[in-house]
């Protein structure tokens, strides 16, 4: 994983426009948070391999970054993205990691199921 370069991400997003894509979208605060500290409110959500299509999308912010994708009937929105997988050219794999390196958010798009 590499820190996000917004121009690279914008380029990748543009290349994925107007085609069927599988999305993995996730946000998590960690299941162990409440086990260690009962005042914490653990939350996690993910959707894996839902099929979407977007007509335009962009990356914004100065880091951590936001991404918005316009779909025919709605939006995909994700905030807090910090890293992307530079070795994967077919798929766009992005994640947001906190100061300890723990994953907080993930947004992944691929023409093939994950």
């Amino acid at each position, binding site marked *: *994983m590499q820190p996000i370069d917004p121009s690279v991400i914008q380029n990748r997003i543009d290349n994925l426009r107007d085609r069927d894509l599988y999305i993995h979208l996730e946000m998590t605060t960690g299941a162990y948070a409440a086990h260690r500290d009962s005042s914490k409110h653990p939350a996690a959500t993910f959707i894996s391999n839902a099929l979407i299509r977007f007509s335009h999308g962009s990356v914004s912010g100065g880091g951590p970054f936001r991404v918005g994708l316009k779909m025919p009937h709605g939006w995909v929105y994700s905030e807090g993205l910090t890293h992307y997988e530079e070795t994967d050219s077919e798929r766009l794999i992005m994640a947001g990691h906190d100061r300890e390196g723990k994953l907080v958010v993930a947004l992944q798009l691929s023409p093939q199921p994950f």
Partner: protein
Amino acid sequence: MSDKGQNQGRKLLAVFAHPDDESFICGGTLAKYAAEGVDITLVSATRGEMGRRMGNPPYLNRETIPTAREQELKNACDCLGIRQLRFFDIRDKTVEFVDREALVARIEALIRDLDPDVMLTFHEKLGGHPDHCAIGWATTEACRRAGRLESLYFISFGGMMEQPERYGYTRRDVVKVDVSAHLPAKLAAFRAHRCQSEIDEWVWRSDREALSRFGSHEYFLRAAPAPASDAAGRGARGLF
């Protein structure tokens, strides 16, 4: 208790949820029995692929983490002396949502096939994580159906079972295993689970310093009451 070979031919089946459960929670006990010649089979229901620890800076992502954690678990098994490793290929976080009957049947078939002397799993309420509680419930149910509840023990975290009364149990329900001679193997297993343990700075200090963080005992809860005749705390086929 530690004569090598005294438990030759004995079998232990551990059914857990994630790679690292076996090392972080009861690695000392597994290393001890492996060293005594017990043939250990470990089941990991998932590959821990929804874990949040992915290196810092992150060197893993959601798509590369399953293979990485599988390999780390294989390395940890080598450190502990576990020879048989199986995955149930359930996606991390979803153990409580899979077909419960199918999961119980799968574990029951494994119990009947292996005929282990002792089984370990999570307590269905004290597991601390939904996947832990779900695999613990399913394994307990499978043991019950196989008529083997008296061979089942629940693993517990750290010293929580030093005061079993707090959880509605008594001292007779608790088995205490001295793992002091096997802490180096436990530390090696912690380090094998690198992407999970590297965030914990103490694991990577000198061996002496890191080893001092471990307790000398690991605690287990009996799934069935101790038989009255069992003065020494060990069942007929039991290792504990």
